[in-house]
């Protein structure tokens, strides 16, 4: 290939170097420090070589260079995981190829690898800003590719580029809307990332880290009327095993068999439920947490196809959330059903720790005739009447943590209150468990969605009454503002400062606007899934004006086809001979009679006008050359002649009729 043997375009190597540096920066989540340094060393050496204008390395030298890096990679492969190893190899291939660039043909493979490597960045980054940056880099790669196949000093033609854009954009959007989406075809390796959000154990104190985080947890938009703020209890985890100090999830949540419980279970449940209850439909856009748990209100009845139903009416994703996902749920804001007798037994287990609490629980039970509702009311009264305080910085607790909290320190936050309440209720013989999730959120009035941050993490209690799990939030008793208007109102000014930081200035406002934009991006771009696609089609098909559109399109296309046909016919009659014949007749103001060739006609005229015979014969000659030899020059000359002598031809030449 000739074009492949051409020299590389100017500054091509420099631009690829920039691209590689950007790739290295984008791959940071997958690269250990040492590997980053190794790549940085390689790239700076390449930069130095470019600066010194040194020739490309030979393949052999490159192999010597790459071998140690590959060995390093092999040594790390078990720690890195398959995905990261693949990204390493991509980066290594791109950087290595950069050293051996000589001809354009060498660079084509590089372009291919760079496309792949750049798109892989989307595994880590899905926020709008990063996505735009990556698309920018893809554009740069496309430009580099274009330069390989364009003249060395060619400028970008704006018209052609615009045309490209105009063709590309509708195809792109069309493909995005229409192209079939499949469920995952096989298990894929995930990057090794620490999970964020709620942890699997609840040790009063562990939420403290969460509470200060402004990071986004998820966003919710309601399809039906949004429930009142007191109902915004987003359940994510249920803690049932208590060891005297820490709450843990029961093994039934992690066992593999339950993954098969799917949407069917959800829907059959909804059929058995009376329809009169208030149902809420909402869509949740969850941020990557590297956990499987999803968030739902009350009792989920039905939801998106991909969701799986967990015990205790919890929802989960089949795989840990490595990226934002969007799912919709219909929930009933009602107490949850008891699933089995073992669930009841599980939530009555007690430990030997906290003797004072257990004793107090037993006393409460006796005082209220083992009536769960009354015991809960008594507990609420106790929390309200005694000097309990809500604080994010409670003192450390000793061995019998619950005893110490209930009867000594009386300062804590949600998980202290929730775990203490659950222990008291269990001691009173009422099955109870601690639920972890999020409470509240910031309602975005303009954009009509609820924004839930990590600091809205919360813990509360569910207790069994008449074989139904009822929610009880002891924190609401101590600090009702926490539930009704959010965490900030509950805290002292210093504690608010701890939380708010930079949110109130104009930069914060800008960030908030950006976050709204990011929300739209998430809903329409990231969250667009199979279901949305189906809905889009359904809405399109249900559109009532279809027959109008189809009729007008068919009429218009018929008209266009007719016009095209006429145009083709006129084009066919417009042979060169016909066109020139017409021009000649116009010039002479006469038409050649039927059955007479132009040549015969012109010769006849020449006989009648001997003084102009040379001109007429020249015209004839030019006519014949342009018609029969397709001589463009002759045609041009003929037209010139006719124009030049138009007065003469019109006035002074006699043409017999």
């Amino acid at each position: 290939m000739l074009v492949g043997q051409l020299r590389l375009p100017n500054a091509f190597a420099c631009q690829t170097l920039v691209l590689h540096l950007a790739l290295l920066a984008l791959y940071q989540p997958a690269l250990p420090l040492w590997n980053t340094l190794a790549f940085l060393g390689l790239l700076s050496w390449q930069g130095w070589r470019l600066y010194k204008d040194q020739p490309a390395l030979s393949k052999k030298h490159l192999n010597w260079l790459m071998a140690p890096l590959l060995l390093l990679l092999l040594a790390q492969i078990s720690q890195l995981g398959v995905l990261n190893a693949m990204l390493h190899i991509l980066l290594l291939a791109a950087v290595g190829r950069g050293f051996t660039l000589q001809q354009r043909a060498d660079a084509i493979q590089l372009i291919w690898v760079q496309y792949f490597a750049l798109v892989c960045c989307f595994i880590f980054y899905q926020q709008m800003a990063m996505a735009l940056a990556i698309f920018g880099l893809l554009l740069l790669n496309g430009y580099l590719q274009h330069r390989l196949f364009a003249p060395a000093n060619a400028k970008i033609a704006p018209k052609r580029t615009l045309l490209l854009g105009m063709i590309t954009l509708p195809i792109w959007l069309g493909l995005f809307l229409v192209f079939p989406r499949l469920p995952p075809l096989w298990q894929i390796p995930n990057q090794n990332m620490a999970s964020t959000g709620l942890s699997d154990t609840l040790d009063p104190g562990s939420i403290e880290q969460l509470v200060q985080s402004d990071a986004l947890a998820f966003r919710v938009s309601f399809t039906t009327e949004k429930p009142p703020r007191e109902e915004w209890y987003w359940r994510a985890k249920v803690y049932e095993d208590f060891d005297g100090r820490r709450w843990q999830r029961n093994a039934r949540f992690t066992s593999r068999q339950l993954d098969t419980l799917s949407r069917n279970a959800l829907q059959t449940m909804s059929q058995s439920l009376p329809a009169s209850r208030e149902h809420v439909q909402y869509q949740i856009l969850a941020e990557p947490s590297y956990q499987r748990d999803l968030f739902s209100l009350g009792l989920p009845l039905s939801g998106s196809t991909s969701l799986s139903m967990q015990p205790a009416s919890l929802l989960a994703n089949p795989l840990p959330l490595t990226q934002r996902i969007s799912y919709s749920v219909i929930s009933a804001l009602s107490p949850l059903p008891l699933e089995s007798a073992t669930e009841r037994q599980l939530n009555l287990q007690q430990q030997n720790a906290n003797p004072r609490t257990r004793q107090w629980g037993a006393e409460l039970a006796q005082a209220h005739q083992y009536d769960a509702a009354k015991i809960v009311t008594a507990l609420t009264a106790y929390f309200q009447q005694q000097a309990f305080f809500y604080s994010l910085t409670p003192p450390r607790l000793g061995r019998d943590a619950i005893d110490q909290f209930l009867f000594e320190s009386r300062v804590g936050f949600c998980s202290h209150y929730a775990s203490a309440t659950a222990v008291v209720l269990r001691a009173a013989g009422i099955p109870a468990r601690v639920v972890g999730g999020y409470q509240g959120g910031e309602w975005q009035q303009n954009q009509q969605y609820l924004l839930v941050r990590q600091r809205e993490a919360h813990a509360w209690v569910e207790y069994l009454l008449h074989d139904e799990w009822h929610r009880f939030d002891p924190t609401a008793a101590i600090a009702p503002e926490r539930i009704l208007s959010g965490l900030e109102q509950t805290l002292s000014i210093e504690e608010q400062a701890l939380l708010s930081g930079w949110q109130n200035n104009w930069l914060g406002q800008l960030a908030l606007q950006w976050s709204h934009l990011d929300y739209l991006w998430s809903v329409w771009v990231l969250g667009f899934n199979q279901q949305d696609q189906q809905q889009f089609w359904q809405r399109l098909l249900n559109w009532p004006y279809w027959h109008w559109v189809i009729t007008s399109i068919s009429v218009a296309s018929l008209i266009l086809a007719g016009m095209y046909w006429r145009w083709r016919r006129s084009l066919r009659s417009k042979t060169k001979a016909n066109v020139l014949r017409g021009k000649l007749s116009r010039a002479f103001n006469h038409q050649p009679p039927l059955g007479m060739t132009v040549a015969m006609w012109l010769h006849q005229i020449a006989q009648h006008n001997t003084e102009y015979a040379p001109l007429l014969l020249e015209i004839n000659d030019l006519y014949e050359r342009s018609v029969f030899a397709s001589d463009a020059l002759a045609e041009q000359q003929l037209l010139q002649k006719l124009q030049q002598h138009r007065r003469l031809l019109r006035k002074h030449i006699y043409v017999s009729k």
Partner: protein
Amino acid sequence: MSYAKLKQRAQQRFIDWLDKRQPATPSLALTQGVIYILPSRFGWWFSFLIILLYLLGTNYQNNLILLASFVLMSVLLSTMVLAFLNVHRLRLTVTDDAVTYAPLPAALTLKITANLCQMLQIRLKGQRHVQLLEYVAGTDAFTLMIPALDRGCYSLPRLVLKSDYPLGLFTTWSYPALQTQIWVYPEPVAKYTDTEQTLPQATNTPPTTQNELQPTDPTLLRAYQQGDSPKHILWKRLPAAPQQPVVRQRGAPLQSLPEWVHVPLLQGPALEHALSHACQQLLDLEAQGRHYGLQTATAQIAPASGQLHLTRCLQELALC
């Protein structure tokens, strides 16, 4: 063997099909019917990339990866249109035949007209040598190099016009046939290269002198007429006849006898030799502005002079 035969037959059928579809013309434009587009090798790799990214996006349920694969897909599709537009309406016109003397390669001047065509690769079908036209906007003259050929007359083989512009994903090509000839005249060789005499020997005409014209030769002198340059006056003669200045006539006499160049009936290398000499003779005679005719075993060209006549004679030699 049968494979080679099949391949040859298929190629022949293809050529026949092309000849029927696109007969040679002196001028042609690349239109929809004669432009072929297929993905290039890189284009196939690119498609593979798109499929790979689609699978990756599906498995990670990552809309952005899907989006990226759709971008690449739409770029692939729209590049097809751009690749077509790049060569669409390109017009090739040939006005003159290509002419050369035997061992030298010929060059054909083409006129290429295009709105805007970039990175056009031109070669002759069956040849490897490619010429690259980086940029055509408007009308350009283009010199097509034709490899060295033996003496004779050839019709121009089909051209192969090819372009990978703009992204190398699609190869656009066409096989235009231009109606023109390549004339390869015999190599001009003087018979006796070591003597100064270069004029024809095997003819029945008396050898003409090449000496500087003598002023004493009466045929070359004539009486002075008004308008003659004073430089041509023979000043030596002036004292003898002061009233009748004599001027020296420059150049050849008005009507000298025609020269005949003969090519005897020969074969093989001997014929080539004879043709080479005849070629040289013709060139010399034309350079001297003489009248000359050509007599070969099969044809006779009446004496005349001028570039057109020389061309006719040389073409006759080429066809011998």
